[in-house]
């Protein structure tokens, strides 16, 4: 990833915190999304085509991607371009604020792109229309084929400036692509941009693959594969395509995740009818046993500071969520509601644990504080599980399956996301059926 993308930041953010009037509160469901105008970026390029890219169209393509990102948040309402009153180049220099206010816009994004030495140069500005002033400005260069990421980076910067939270648009999602009938599902690892574009398949579908998860730098993926009918945890380097088995275990390993520093993989190892949690250090290859209990211990997930682990165990009878110190001591149960609980995963902010809950024939995605209090169920459905956090800890992506008829007809598996406020539930369109999503961290930090 590093190889293909580099950004040079020319101007740092000009921040006028004290004077800005607009602010988007994302801590509650937003029923009144902020009207925002995204002007097409002014294209200062002479040639029609550049490296197979229709250069003249880039400005409006980039603005469309930004608008789609904003719309997906539920926090912003991108206004129809037909009503725009100023040409992109003039608006970028200095907008006529009163004209933009007339179409009810409260914020305006303008920009300009040009090509120098085969590099795409991008500038953008965010304007506070009510206060009639610039809120943020940024310029950077990249390779022209990265124009989609340009749009995502601009989206992130605007989101950050207006909400005070880090963005999540310049990210990818890895998942399991599913095709074929339910009894003979073909599963492949797939990766796409957060907005569903640029889907690529990382395995061919010859063997069953499950539960891919990114490392913190998004270059490695740990997942489970039934290669040669030996169910084991694997490590895949996305750039080189090199795969290797993690550890030398004499039985099934599964449910892998990286530690927050990326140095270890935590997973379950099942032998003789008993599943326990282990870590393996990727450098020293040292394997450490973390739990030693005759029950099923699985789905481990580290806290972001690496000091604690939450996991799933049936040591009290049925599946519940537990936390323990990262050395395996001080295990305590934290889920006590009616029903059974699975797939706990610790928020990147550290405060919440997301989970799957099963109760009275329904499946829920929910969050609770890491001490087990404050349980909130965000969404109820026939079947859904496996939440994964957006890097800013504001959204969860998970997968949902439909009920199938007699011969398996009507069955589908799709990715969905929801804000932790419980609002803005939406499907993430994928090329095929999909499950087991894992959200990357921000690609450019």
């Amino acid at each position, binding site marked *: 990833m590093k190889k293909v993308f580099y950004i040079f930041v020319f101007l740092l953010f000009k921040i006028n915190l004290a004077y800005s009037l607009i602010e988007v509160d994302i801590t509650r469901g937003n029923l009144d999304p902020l009207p925002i105008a995204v002007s097409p970026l002014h294209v200062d390029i002479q040639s029609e085509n550049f490296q197979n890219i229709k250069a003249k169209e880039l400005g409006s393509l980039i603005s469309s991607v930004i608008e789609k990102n904003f719309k997906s948040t539920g926090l912003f309402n991108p206004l129809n371009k037909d009503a725009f009153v100023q040409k992109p180049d003039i608006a970028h220099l200095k907008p006529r604020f009163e004209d933009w206010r007339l179409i009810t816009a409260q914020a305006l994004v303008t920009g300009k792109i040009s090509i120098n030495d085969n590099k795409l140069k991008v500038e953008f500005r965010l304007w506070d229309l009510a206060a009639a002033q610039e809120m943020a400005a940024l310029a950077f260069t990249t390779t022209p084929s990265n124009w989609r990421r340009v749009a995502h980076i601009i989206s992130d910067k605007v989101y950050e400036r207006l909400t005070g939270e880090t963005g999540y648009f310049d990210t990818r999602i890895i998942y399991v692509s599913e095709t074929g*009938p*339910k*009894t003979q*599902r073909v599963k492949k690892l797939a990766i796409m941009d957060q907005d569903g574009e640029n889907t690529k398949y990382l395995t061919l579908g010859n063997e*069953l693959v*499950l*539960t891919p998860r990114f490392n913190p730098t998004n270059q490695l993926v740990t997942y*489970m594969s039934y290669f040669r*009918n030996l*169910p084991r945890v694997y490590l895949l380097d996305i750039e080189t395509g090199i795969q290797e088995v993690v550890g030398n275990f004499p*039985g*099934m390993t*599964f*449910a892998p995740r990286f530690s927050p520093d990326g140095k270890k993989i935590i997973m*379950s190892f*099942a032998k*003789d*009818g*008993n*599943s326990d949690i282990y870590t393996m250090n990727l450098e020293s290859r040292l394997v450490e046993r973390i739990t*030693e209990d*005759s029950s*099923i211990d*699985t*789905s481990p997930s580290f806290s972001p500071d690496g000091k604690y682990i939450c996991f*799933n165990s*049936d040591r009290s009878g*049925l*599946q519940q969520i537990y936390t323990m110190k990262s050395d395996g001591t001080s295990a305590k149960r934290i889920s006590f509601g009616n029903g*059974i609980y*699975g*797939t706990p995963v610790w928020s990147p902010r550290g405060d919440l644990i997301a989970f*799957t809950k*099963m109760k009275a024939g329904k499946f829920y995605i929910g969050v609770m504080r890491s001490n087990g209090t404050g349980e909130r169920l965000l969404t109820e459905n026939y*079947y859904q*599980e*496996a939440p994964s956090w957006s890097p800013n800890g504001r959204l969860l992506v998970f997968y949902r*399956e439909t*009920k*199938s*008829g*007699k*011969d*398996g007809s009507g*069955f589908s598996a799709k990715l969905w996301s929801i804000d932790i406020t419980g609002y803005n539930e939406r499907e993430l369109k994928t090329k095929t059926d999909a*499950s*087991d999503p894992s959200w990357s961290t921000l690609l450019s930090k």
Partner: protein
Amino acid sequence: MKFNKKISNLLIILISTIALGACSTAKKSGVGSGDVYTGSDTVKYLASGVKDRVFFATNSSSLTTASRDTLRKQASYLRKNKNLNVVLEGHADERGTREFNLALGEKRANAAKDYLMTYGISGKRVSVISYGKEKPINSASTPLSWSQNRRAVTVKTK
């Protein structure tokens, strides 16, 4: 560990005996005793009269009386065919989280394997694999289908 396991196996047998005593009037086919499948749809045979699979209740890896009967017949068949090795495939239904179901499938396959070993089959002849909920035999979303999918299947390897 080993010691614990023996105790828990004993307990499982005890508990299921009690449980079964209580519902000896379980229905003839379909979902019987608790929600364990007792019919013979989807069942294949290793040899005449030797069923290839046993079924489980939701969230359970306990063997029922019928399952133990099936496994004793499998053990006797394996004793007669000394060159035969088998793999025990453990499965779960679709109404559970993927990772937990992988563990549950492994537990079910091992419950069956342990029983075969009690009846004189060397552990070396029996390997175990869990497919969790990945390979349902019946793709309908019904309690009957789920009961057929909660299974441990004995498959000949050579």
